[in-house]
């Protein structure tokens, strides 16, 4: 594999990691929004809050990694994507800001009204960001981003069936992943009713996701036949693995097997993302700019690979420590002497 190809692979891995962690975060936000009124939604919301708060910021950093990696390694493609898809990217960013603001705010919002507002912003941001990031991906996949400064159509590049369906797919994927995560979290805390609650939602989202994914594929067939053909020929093994893994997730959860549940769900989502990557390779922008043509200076790319290894060596142990601390206790929530008291989930 060429250096540029290796960097592109690192990029796909970063996108996968973001889908696992970041998208799941947004999914939790969606469940928070849909949890219902103050009384009936209280306990699911509290579980979401305690399960997500310690790790959300770390989850979010992958997005910055993806952005930086793209402009350093593939500057031309980055500039083209950022300018043609200016609108959905701004809206995705709006979601990031709303979510971050509400996260910071709700930690300490004592009054109900303020908490309510924070909750709404949290939910809204949780839908905006994955939807529009998905739409951006859809626009790229459909081949609607030409090389140049805002060279593509700024509206139809993302407001088309493939992009919109990919956006919905991203939202559904996040909702599915977070529901699976929360099933396991509820199990760990010994809260059977919440486990059932999120299990139902995981199944619904898996079905919705598969249906939307199918619809997106059909839309792609009409929009960009070449891409569709590549998806169903060279990517078919990965597509099948993805679907099988998602089916296995359902089966494991049905049989109340929590061990390995999250791993299988994550593998399924990864397989689907890689099926896109394999279908699109060797193009950065199908089918006008290849990885080789769009790649930056070889010296920079070599350093980026070294950087990726160092990142792995430094970040993985730290991240492992954080997740271990998170998983070891059931109440890795706020600090009572400096924040409001933690919710009591058992009632």
């Amino acid at each position, binding site marked *: 594999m060429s250096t540029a190809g290796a960097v592109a692979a690192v990029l796909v891995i970063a996108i996968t990691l973001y889908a696992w962690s970041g998208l799941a975060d947004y999914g939790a936000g969606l469940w928070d929004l849909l949890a219902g009124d103050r009384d009936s939604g209280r306990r699911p919301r509290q579980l979401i809050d305690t399960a997500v708060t*310690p*790790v959300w*910021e*770390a989850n*979010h*950093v992958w997005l*910055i990694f993806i*952005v*930086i*990696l793209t*402009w*350093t390694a593939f*500057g*031309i493609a*980055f*500039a*083209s994507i*950022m*300018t043609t898809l*200016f*609108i959905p*990217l*701004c809206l995705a*960013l709006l979601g*990031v*800001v709303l979510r*971050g*603001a509400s996260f*910071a705010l709700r930690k*300490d*919002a*004592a009054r109900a009204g*303020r908490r309510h507002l924070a909750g709404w912003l949290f939910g809204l941001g949780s839908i905006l960001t994955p939807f529009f990031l998905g739409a951006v991906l859809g626009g790229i996949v459909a081949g609607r981003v030409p090389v140049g*400064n*805002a060279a593509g159509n*700024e509206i139809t590049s993302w407001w088309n069936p493939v992009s919109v369906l990919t956006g919905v797919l991203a939202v559904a994927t996040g909702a599915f992943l977070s529901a699976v995560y929360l099933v396991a979290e509820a199990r760990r805390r010994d809260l059977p009713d919440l486990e059932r609650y999120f299990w139902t939602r995981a199944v619904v989202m898996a079905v919705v996701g598969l249906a939307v994914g199918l619809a997106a594929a059909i839309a792609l067939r009409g929009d960009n036949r070449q891409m569709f053909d590549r998806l169903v020929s060279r990517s078919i093994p990965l597509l099948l693995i993805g679907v099988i893994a998602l089916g296995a997730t359902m089966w494991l959860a049905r049989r109340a097997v929590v061990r390995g549940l999250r791993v299988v769900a994550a593998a399924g989502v990864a397989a689907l993302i890689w099926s896109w990557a394999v279908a699109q390779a060797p193009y950065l922008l199908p089918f006008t700019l290849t990885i080789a043509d769009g790649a*930056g*200076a070889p*010296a*920079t*790319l070599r350093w980026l690979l070294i*950087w990726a290894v*160092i*990142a792995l060596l430094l*970040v993985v142990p*730290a991240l492992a*420590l*954080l997740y271990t*601390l998170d998983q070891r*206790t*059931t*109440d*890795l929530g706020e*600090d*009572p*002497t*400096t*924040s409001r008291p*933690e919710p*009591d989930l058992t009632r």
Partner: protein
Amino acid sequence: MRDWLLSDQPAQLLPARQQMALTLMFHIVFVPLGVALPTLMLIAHHKGLRRDDPVALRLARRWSHVAGLTFAVGAVSGTVLSFEMGLLWPGLTGVFGDVFGLPFAIEGIAFFLEAILVAIYIYGWRRLKPWTHFKLGLPIPFIALLGMFSIISANSWMNTPAGFTMGSDGRPTNIDPIAAIINPALPYEFTHFLLATYMAAGFLVASVYAVGWLKGRRDRYHRLGFLIPFTVAAIATPLQFIAGDTIARWLPTAQPAKFSAMEVVTQSGTHQPEVMFGRYDPATNTVSGGISIPDLNSILVGFSPNTYVQGLNAVSPADLPSNINIVHWAFDIMVTIASLLMVLALWYAFLYWRKREVPSSRLFLWCAIAAGPLTVLAVESGWIVTEVGRQPWIVYNVMRTSQAVTDSDGVWVSLTVVALLYLFLAAATITVLRAMARRWREADHADDTAAVYGPRPGLDRSTAA
């Protein structure tokens, strides 16, 4: 490839510059709190553990929560900035991405590690052994420093670009990313900003406790809360004076047009006066008003009134910084504030040396309270000097800002949305910080002897066992 290198003053330039300025000026406030506040927190933590001092531990614990909150908001505004590099300046990232992108990649790792360690530190108060907890927090300031180093490296590269040669097709060749990272301006900018973060965070945190001291809350909690950060800031201040002076003498060779704008040197020559404030008129290339001290500028630059300084008349009109008055005023505001802080630091050193106590005079306390916001103002001014003074170049003498700007249509809309959003974000941050402070004050009254480590009786549930 594309014709964005040829366009002249596109309509997007103004809103794009405004949006970048707005988001950067917002973000830069959180940098000292991300870099220097963890240091203050660890000093208090160490003091608390070594002397078995619950008051110092409580300070460390509370500062860690402030650091956590401001880090979270800084993370959000930092994400916006990383997107804006492409959304607003595709010409920069599209052409030079592989030249100056690597420091951002380093920053990515640093930021990630900091996010993880801050989370562990905050949640560690109740569930890690005290010294283990302290040691896990110890890398935070160094990692934050690495992140700051990277961003400053990218910025100083834009001021003194290195590590490439410009090809005839308008694209860089012979790219050496390491030479780009270690560019000529880096040591100057890095030292200057490093000291600025410690001054800003120190004076800012100290000013909070100075308010309490002035209101008569003269307990050990407020004493330490004032002395630790104020001492750190007071040590950084004279060092900053040396650093700033060194930069001011280096700048005329590296970026002469910027230096002429900062000091409003109108005509090249020797015996340059030092002009404080005043109003520059670009039409006639003259300065009216202000205070002019004969020969001082030449003396400051080369220790002799015969030192030659290039004037604005030597810069071609197309390359003239676009807002000379803003650059000049920002520079003078920064220098004035720095001089006042220098006096304050010396005053403090003298008083503390005599009494070993928080100085009690009301005048001193009022000055100490003002020092916090003023340092932030100085940081903002300094940033304006660097960035506006560099215009019209986004990469000094290589690429104009107008060549880098996006061709997208939505920039006025995004600027409006960003302005409203940041207003909300700022309001939310301040509200939360005030709520924290209020709750902590109530907690102080409620019970003063609570253990800092371990779960607090009464509030915690029994499930942890």
